[in-house]
């Protein structure tokens, strides 16, 4: 269903572009913005940079080690690829872009927690705190305005995301014996969709020449993003052939982050 919608949006975009091209007025030789189209086309080749998560203080008080598991995320990769945008009269724009973002929580505190909880066991390589990634097609609504050779574009972004992560499972081996503990953290999503919301500002510099049909526009994008999630976590561990200790906890998060990316795109005059 999601893919179907995407195909329809692409078809409509291409039709609009085609319409704009077919109905264009005689070309005006200009190094400035072309004002001869009602609709201008913008292609974003890539956006790449850092996602800087903001800590959610309430996560510090979670039980069963989930505070160490979820708190203190670190800076990770964020970016976008192949954005296609249409701008009405060079100002109002809608864009679809493939957007992705990695998240991971620093492992050190969680490893310490597990070591302290099971002191006579070897800590395996697989012990790591929460790690996941978001990716999918995102949609942007923006307004573009210009000052000299700079273009400023505040925008709102909505993403309907795939949320991919690794379920935490590791085995702790006891010192001096074959005995071991299997430790699992599993989670169940309580929301129908993982939506992300982003408010951002792109500042672009415009390279252009009168004979060029496209402006080349590198720039910088700064955005504030939240991704509300609601998961039921089940934390369980058991020794071989022994009954498991099972704990459950519901955790709602906003996953706020500042994203700073460099942008390279082209804007059809």
């Amino acid at each position, binding site marked *: 269903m999601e893919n179907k919608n995407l195909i329809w949006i692409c078809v409509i975009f*291409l039709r609009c*572009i*085609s319409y704009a*091209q077919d109905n264009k007025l005689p070309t005006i030789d200009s190094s400035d913005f072309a004002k001869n189209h009602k609709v201008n086309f913008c292609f974003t080749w890539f956006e790449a940079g850092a996602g800087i998560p903001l800590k959610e203080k309430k996560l510090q008080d979670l039980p069963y080690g989930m505070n160490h598991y979820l708190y203190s995320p670190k800076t990770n990769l964020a970016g976008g690829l*192949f954005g296609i945008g249409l701008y009405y009269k060079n100002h109002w724009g809608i864009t679809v872009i493939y957007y992705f973002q990695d998240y991971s929580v620093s492992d050190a505190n969680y490893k310490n927690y597990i070591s302290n909880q099971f002191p006579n066991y*070897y800590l395996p390589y697989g012990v790591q705190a929460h790690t996941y990634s978001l990716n999918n097609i995102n949609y942007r609504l923006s307004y573009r305005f210009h000052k000299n050779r700079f273009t400023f574009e505040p925008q709102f972004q909505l993403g309907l995301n795939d949320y991919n992560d690794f379920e935490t499972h590791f*085995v702790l*081996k006891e*010192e*001096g*014996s*074959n*005995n*071991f503990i*299997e430790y699992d953290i599993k989670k169940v999503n309580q929301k129908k969709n993982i939506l992300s919301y982003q408010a951002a500002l792109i500042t672009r510099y415009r390279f252009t020449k009168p004979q060029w049909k496209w402006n080349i526009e590198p720039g910088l994008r700064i955005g504030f993003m939240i991704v509300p999630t609601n998961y039921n976590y089940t934390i369980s561990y058991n020794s*071989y*052939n022994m009954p498991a200790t099972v704990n459950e906890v519901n955790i709602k998060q906003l996953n706020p982050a500042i994203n700073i990316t460099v942008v390279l795109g082209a804007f059809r005059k």
Partner: protein
Amino acid sequence: MKNIHIFILCAILFCFCSCSKHIPAEFEVVGMSLTNAENTGESPSEATTNNVPKQAYAIKIILNEEMRKKTEGDAQENGFINEDKLVGLNIFSLYSFDATHPAKTSLNDYFLTSLKSSATINALISSGVIGGGSLKNGNYTDSWSTNQYLYLMTPPALTGAHSFVVKIDLSDGRSMCDTVNVTLY
């Protein structure tokens, strides 16, 4: 408009061309021997004597393997598959192990193939996989050996001598068998 069509065409072509199929190379298990292993540390190691703590005892199976069918392409990415599947594996002791396991009765339920509860002997037989491939500097080799550990998870109540026998059956009708003597304390 033309540029957009070219771009979309390139993207579609890239999607179709970027993946190629890897065919695993085939090897055959040609021999098997057993030694004692102890697992008191982080990972198992071959025991230096025949006296091993019963809580940390493991049987080390050394499988001798030979290459049967090499495949083209990157050996690392192609991977390996055993030519003949494992269809049976039985562990038993020549002496009485405990009250419910007299001599020569199967001890399969007392052993795991790795330290996780799902790694039972039955699971190994169901997978049919035994042994594994080996590469030297990224290239195929003609013969090599790999190790498979069987961890004793339910040690006997009493200390004493045991003779464990491991017998494996392969899908081509061959069977291999070896015995290892140990004193568990």
